[in-house]
Each structure stands twice: as C-alpha cells, then as structure tokens.
C-alpha cells in the first residue's frame, strides 16, 4: 500500500485551500495539496466582480468600516450567520486585500478627480479625493450600504488565484494535480487524512496527516442550471458527511444568482448591476423599482432572483426558443466601460450568445450559484465533532453567510478564512498531543474498503446508468428544490432522490477500465452527490419557514421563534435520508438582533428573546454615547480573542489614520 505522510493535507487547490496551505507552511508545517485540476483552473477564477473589504478609499465608500460591513453581511444572511464569525471576517478582509496587494494582485486603483458613473439610471459625476489616488478602488455591489467591493477589472478571482497559486509555488508547496479524495480516514472522532484516487492512473493511495482541511468549494452541479464549473460537485463535503461523524450545516441554503446567461447558466457578474446595469422585462421596462423601491437592482441576490421569477410568472418574461427570460441592459454604461471594466462579460456574450452587450441586451435568468452550507466548523475552522478535520471557503459552514451570501463576500471568505484557519491548523499541528499515532492497519482498512467499492462498480453486474442518474438528480433539484419551494414538491423530490440513491447502488459500467475512466468517476461521484442532494431537499422540506435564499411559498414568513437555528445533517451507513438536528442561534449574544433587512419581505415572526436583546443593545449604545465605535462593539459582542494573534488589531483608512504613522 502506498502511503503519503504529511502534517497538513489540503483537499482542494482553489483560493481557500492555497491560503490555508501557505499559512500552515509559513508556520513550519509540511503541506500537501490535492486538487482535481491544476490550481489555477479552480472555480475561484470565476469570481469576476470582486471582493468586499471596507477600505473606504473611493468617495462612495467614505465612512465605510468594519461595522457597516458587519451589518450588511448579517442582514444579507437574514440573521442566519454566526455574528462572531462575521466580526472576525470583516476585521480581516481589509488585511486580506492588503496582503494580496503586497503579493502581486493588480487591484484596480482609484484615480483622483472627476469621473462619470451611472447610479440609478442617471449619469452622475463623482469626484475622487487626491489622497485616495493610487489606492485600491471599490465598486458598488448588491446588499451593501457603501461601495466596498475591491476588484481587478472583471477578472478579480482570476487575478487573485494567479497570485495565490504563484505564492504557493514560491513556498514550494506540492500540489498533487488530478487527484481526488474519495474517503476520509478516521477513528474514534479523530480524522487522520484521506484515501486519494489518482484520476489518471486510477491508483488509490492513503494520505496520512495530522490535520486535514476540506477546501473543495461548492456543490452547484447538484442542479442542472448552475453558474458553477463542472468540477463543483461537492465531493469534499460528501466525504465529510460519509464519515457519519462530521456534520454538514444549512445545506438547504442554496443561492441563485440573478444573472446567469440564458440558457447556458454562465455567470455575468453582479458588477454589471453594481456599475449601473438595469434589469428589464419583455416590454423593455425596468421592473425592479416596483418591487424593491429602496435597493432596486441592488437588493441582495436572493431577493432580486425571486423578484425576477415572480415577474416572469406574471407573464412579463421575454421568450426565445429555449424558454422565458429577462434582460440585463448594460448598454447605458458605454463601450469604453464595457470593454475595459466588464471585458469578460463582453467575451462571454460574444462567444456564447453571439451578441454585443455594447448594443444588445443580455438574456438572463437566475441560476444556482452558491452553496452557503457545507462542513460545519467552529470559529477556528475545525469540525466540532471530528477532531483534526478543518474546512474553509465555500465547502465550509463557518458560518458567515447564514441563509444568503452577499456578492463579493465569497472570494473574500476564501482568503480570509484561509488566513484564519491556516493559523489554527498550524496551532493544531504544533501540539505534540496531535501527532499521528495510528496503526498503518487503519489506513489499510479504509483503502481496502474503497478499493473493494470501486472494483464492485467495475466488475459488478449492476444495470443502472450513472450519467442518467446524475441527469435525473439535477433535473429534480432544478425543478423542485429551486428558488420557490413548496412542501409537496419538496416531499416528492425527497422521494425521488431516495429512489435514485437506491438505484445508484446498482450502477453498471459500460466501460470497465480501471485507470482514467470518466464513467467510473461519474459513478462513484453520483452516489455521493445524491446524499448531498438529499441533505438539501430534506433540509428544505423540514424547514417550514422562509429565510434568505430558502423560500417556502407555503411558509413565506421568516420565523425566528421556531427557526432561528442552523440545520445539521449527518449520514448513517446505508440510510437513504440524512439525520437532521438543529443548533440554535443565541439571540441574547447577538450584536445585531434580528429585524428587517432593509429590502425584501417586512413580515417576520420575532424570537421571544429579540425585544429584550434589542432593548439591551439600545440601552448600551445610549449609555456609551460618545465612546469609540470599537469600545461599543467590544461591549456588545467581544470577539477579538477569537482571532489568531497576528490577525488582531484595527485597520488603517484614509479617514482613520493610525496615530503613530511612520
């Protein structure tokens, strides 16, 4: 048996995984990253629009700070987020942008003086400050009070991933490309690494590690219509689930992005609307102000997506041969802006739609976009139930997004969580008590089990077609577990998915080679994906309320009294359903007690503790009137000690200079 030993095994070579790896390596630990694809091909590259961090350099971002970013993120999450984690995140995000600026990301920069921008369909001249010239620029994004999204033209994720991957190469971190973790090695509540399959040779190998980090991204491919890359199948989350010990949090919280191009589902960035683009209907009429007078096109994604589908349901969709859609009009931004700041959008329109967005409107319809749920972790990124297993980025439920993520907070999470979790992984590996002392036999047992499973698929007499099962699953998820959900649809989705899961145990392959066999890969993955799909559908069926991206037509109100809690899913052996349990959120510890988000439905059921906590918070703010915002925050919900030491401390801004400036 082949065994690779390392201190830290990172599963997934996107932004989060690379940053975790770099962090641990800098602290002196050996790191191996395994990745389905060369790291620069990871789905992180698809984040076009930008990364939120409250630098407040541009004039429309003036006055921005951690507090404003915190409130936007919690409101965006529909109060589903862990507010302490959100605080850790917003305080680290400016540091992450500045670290990446030092590492080589060519962030777009502020140019002093006048410039013309489009705000609410009007041309407006804004004047950037002299003292901001050359600092990292920010653009507007949905669900934010200030312009906070730092960007690199419209290739932000690409540029970040280039730099991060380059720095991982500089740090001599090996990346085992075209390999896939198919099972975690664990015993008595402790994770010891993974069984890894070489996708070229088919060979299995045990990777034994002190700490294992799952950074494998989201699970968009559970759906037929998704913006996600084809590798986003959630396998990292699924192998955590299959331990029966680790839990997945809030899998029913799936985000739909308002502007997938129709019908292919390829993303065009939120930056289109942030920069002034409008949504229009079959009559060429701008409809979002009718529904969302405050934020219009720039309400949070869950709200805009629902309003679009609502408008289509009223018969206002445009039609083409593939079905109904709406229009994204960015023509008002002008050729220079589009070809310069939104060039990827121009390329996508040109190549996939054969249209020119300088002159033509873009056909769009919401498409599955982001997995808020994932491997449940504590604030350090470690699984509370499976020691030595960490997770970061989209694969994790850390949980800073709750039931809806804000645009620009995902690439931000990847690097911020990478920085924080990387330190905690290193702390974990520093402790002698966490040395690996398992017998080789344990790794061998796991490897044999996986080998037997794959051999069974290759040589068995099964009759089910793996690709067909996968297509059925994707169709069910898109049709019944989508933007608008109803109890009866969800119940039938759960039934049908269970049947597919049972059938997936009887897959037969047409192509029997053991090496690089795409059909075999589809077969073992679809077995895992069906479990994830059931976590989503069953979690959605059980949650009889609406919160963030989870919208139940039969239970349209957010119900804090009964549902201000996180769904936790575990999977036991041969079950056909996950076991669900719930982790309540403590209103009495919240810095921002639940309320109206500022957009979307105003109607919700309060938690019994909310009025008292809201009164406490108000009283405390009054008592401390005149105190610094940091002191007030500290009094409301202390979090500073939760951050690794080197990431603590304030962030300097033009309007918040450090006193002892060198």
């Amino acid at each position, binding site marked *: 048996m082949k065994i690779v030993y390392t201190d830290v095994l990172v599963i997934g070579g996107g932004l989060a995984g690379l940053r975790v790896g770099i962090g641990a390596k800098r602290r002196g630990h050996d790191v191996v990253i395994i990745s389905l*694809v*060369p790291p*620069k*091909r990871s*789905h992180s*590259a*698809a984040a076009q629009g930008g990364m939120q961090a409250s*630098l407040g350099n541009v004039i429309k971002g003036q006055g921005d700070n951690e507090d404003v970013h915190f409130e936007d993120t919690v409101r965006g999450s529909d109060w589903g987020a862990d507010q302490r984690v959100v605080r850790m995140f917003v305080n680290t995000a400016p*540091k992450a942008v*500045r*670290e990446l*600026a*030092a*590492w*080589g990301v*060519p*962030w*777009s*920069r502020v*140019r002093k003086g006048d410039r013309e921008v489009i705000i609410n369909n009007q041309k407006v001249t804004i004047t950037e400050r002299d003292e901001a010239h*050359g*600092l*990292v620029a920010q653009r507007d994004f949905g669900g934010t009070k200030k312009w906070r999204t730092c960007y*690199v*033209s419209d*290739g932000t994720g*690409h540029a970040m991933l*280039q730099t991060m991957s*380059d*720095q991982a190469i*500089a740090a001599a971190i090996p990346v085992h*490309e*075209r390999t896939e973790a198919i099972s975690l090695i664990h015993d008595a509540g402790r994770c010891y690494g993974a069984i890894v399959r070489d996708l*070229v040779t088919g060979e299995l190998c045990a990777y034994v590690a002190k700490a294992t980090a799952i950074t494998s991204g989201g699970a968009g491919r559970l759906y*037929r219509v998704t913006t996600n*890359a084809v590798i986003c199948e959630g396998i990292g989350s699924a192998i955590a689930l299959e331990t029966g010990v680790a839990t997945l949090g809030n899998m029913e919280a799936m985000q739909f992005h308002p502007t997938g191009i129709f*019908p*292919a589902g390829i993303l065009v960035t939120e930056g289109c609307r942030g920069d002034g683009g409008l949504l229009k209907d079959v009559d060429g009429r701008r409809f979002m102000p009718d529904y969302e007078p405050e934020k219009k096109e720039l309400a949070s994604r869950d709200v805009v997506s629902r309003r679009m589908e609502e408008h289509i349901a009223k018969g206002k969709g445009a039609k083409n*041969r*593939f079905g109904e859609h709406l229009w994204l009009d960015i023509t008002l931004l002008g050729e220079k802006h589009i070809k310069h700041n939104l060039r990827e959008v121009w390329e*996508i329109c040109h190549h*996939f739609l054969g249209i020119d967005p300088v002159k033509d409107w873009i056909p769009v319809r919401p498409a599955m976009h982001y997995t808020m749920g994932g491997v449940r972790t504590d604030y350090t990124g470690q699984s509370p139930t499976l020691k030595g297993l960490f997770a970061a980025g989209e694969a994790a439920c850390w949980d800073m997004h709750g039931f809806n993520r804000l645009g620009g907070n995902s690439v931000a999470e990847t690097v911020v969580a990478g920085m924080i979790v990387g330190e905690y992984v290193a702390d974990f590996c520093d402790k002698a008590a966490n040395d690996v002392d398992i017998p080789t036999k344990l790794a061998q047992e796991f490897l044999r089990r996986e080998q037997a499973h794959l051999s069974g698929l290759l040589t068995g007499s099964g009759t089910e077609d793996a*690709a*067909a099962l996968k297509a*059925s699953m994707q*169709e*069910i998820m898109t049709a019944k577990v989508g933007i608008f959900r109803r109890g009866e649809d969800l119940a039938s989705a759960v*039934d*049908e998915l*269970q*049947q597919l899961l049972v059938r997936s145990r009887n897959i037969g*392959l*047409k*192509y029997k080679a053991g*090496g*690089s066999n*795409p*059909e075999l890969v589809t077969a073992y993955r679809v077995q895992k994906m069906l479990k994830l799909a059931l976590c989503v559908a069953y979690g959605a069926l059980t949650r009889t309320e609406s919160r963030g991206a989870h919208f139940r037509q039969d239970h349209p109100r957010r119900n804090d009294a009964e549902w201000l809690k996180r769904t936790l899913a575990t999977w036991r052996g041969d079950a056909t359903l996950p076991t669900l349990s719930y982790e309540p959120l403590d209103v009495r510890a919240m810095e921002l007690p639940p309320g109206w988000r500022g957009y979307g439905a105003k109607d919700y059921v309060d938690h019994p503790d909310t009025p008292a906590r809201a009164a406490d918070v108000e009283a405390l703010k009054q008592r401390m009137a005149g105190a610094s915002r940091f002191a007030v925050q500290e009094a409301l919900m202390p979090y500073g000690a939760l951050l690794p030491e080197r990431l603590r401390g304030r962030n*300097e801004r033009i309007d918040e200079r*450090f006193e002892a400036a060198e």
Partner: protein
Amino acid sequence: MNTAKVVKIVPASQAGGNGAAHRALKIHVLRHNPQDPASVPRMQTYDVEEADGMTLFIALNEIREKMDASLQFDFVCRAGICGSCAMVINGRPTLACRTLTKNLPTEITLAPLPFFELIGDLSVDTGKWMRGMSERLEGWLHMKDPNPDISRIEERMDPDLADKIYELDRCIECGCCVAACGTARMREDFVGAVGLNRVARFRLDPRDARTDADYYDVIGDDNGVFGCMSLLACHDVCPKNLPLATQIAFMRRKMVKMAWGK
C-alpha cells in the same frame, strides 16, 4: 416513497427547438490511451446531431454520455476563463468550451494539444508543464518586504499601470501559444510565449524586487527570449488576445540591452 417517475432529460439547448432541421455533424477525434499498452493512436468518428447554441463542450459531453463512456477530455469552467479545454480544432489550437459548432463545417476534427504530455484522447497535462515553467522562471512576485504590515494603508500604484499589469495577468495558461509555437517544436525546454509574458508581467510590476539582470538569468538564452523566431502563431491563437508579439519583442530588446551592458 412515491412510485418511480421517469424524468425525461432534454438538454436546454434542444428544448423548444424552432423546428428547423439540424445539421448532421461528423466529429473525428484522435484517440489514444497511453495508460493502456494495447492502445494505438487512431481516428474515431462520432455522428452528432447539431443543436441550437451547441458548443464543443455540449457535443463532447453528449458523445461521452450517450455513445462512448471512455472518451477523455477536460472541461472545468465551460465559460472560457479557466483554460482547461484547449485542443486542436480543425487544425487550430483554441478553447473548445466556447467554440460554437455552428461556426464550424460539418466535418470537425479534434486532436489533443501537441507538445504537452498526453493523458488520453483530448486530455493533456498542461498543469505539470506550467508548474515546471513557473518554478524555472520563478514566476511569482518577489516581494521587496516579505512581511508587510497589512493593517496599514496599502502602497499606492498608478491606476494605468495596474491596468497594464492586469492586461498581462489575464493569461489562463491554456497552452495554445506553446502548442502553436515553432520553437517549442524544436526546443523542448523553450519557455514559450506564456513564460515570456509571465516575466514581462513581473518586470512591469514595481512591487517586484528583481532587476533586468535577474530576468536575464532566466530568459537570456535560446530557451528563453532569444529562442523565439517571431513566427507569431502564439499571438494569433491566444484566446485572451494577449499582446504576446509586442511583449516578446519588448523583452528581447531589454535583454539585448542587458547583455551589451554586461
């Protein structure tokens, strides 16, 4: 459980077709599996009915799902941004995911990118080569201060310069430039336009501590900038329209100057 329900899958690209007859495509694929000692390179032809909006991503997946489960190819983003799916399409290296079949004749010939190690059929190992190139050229920003204070305001950069650096940073390492390169055919250690563009990108970046002497050390020979014969196929095939010809000429001038100054 409810009784089993058969869900009929209609690809979005075929739903609600406009009734017009679709073309019959013949897709010829150069096949070989180096993992299999019995495999010999051969052409295999698949008959595919064209659909509205069909890309080679859609066509190849349809072949694999319905006709031939063994066919190997690589797609990741399927949106033209990740560089995974470069292959030779009717003689020209380009990205398959954003190639619409309607822009091709009915006879379509697909081959893996030359130069790179073949994994199987249309799949080649660009990743290993790119990492090796990057290690050789030290293709990362060499920080002047390795431990910057990230709580302080970031260093300023001229907005136009930031845009220029991004222009060169747009490379997706798809490998088309190397596959189309005459020099690479003769010199297997040639760093290619991708490598030279990478060096040009860091040279342009004031945050990088290196000097022209350092760059000369890594590209000042025939496997570097002096190996280029200016055939410019790299420039012609680059799916991101990077200004490769200009960059290579510019780097060559700088490196010549460097050599004379020695």
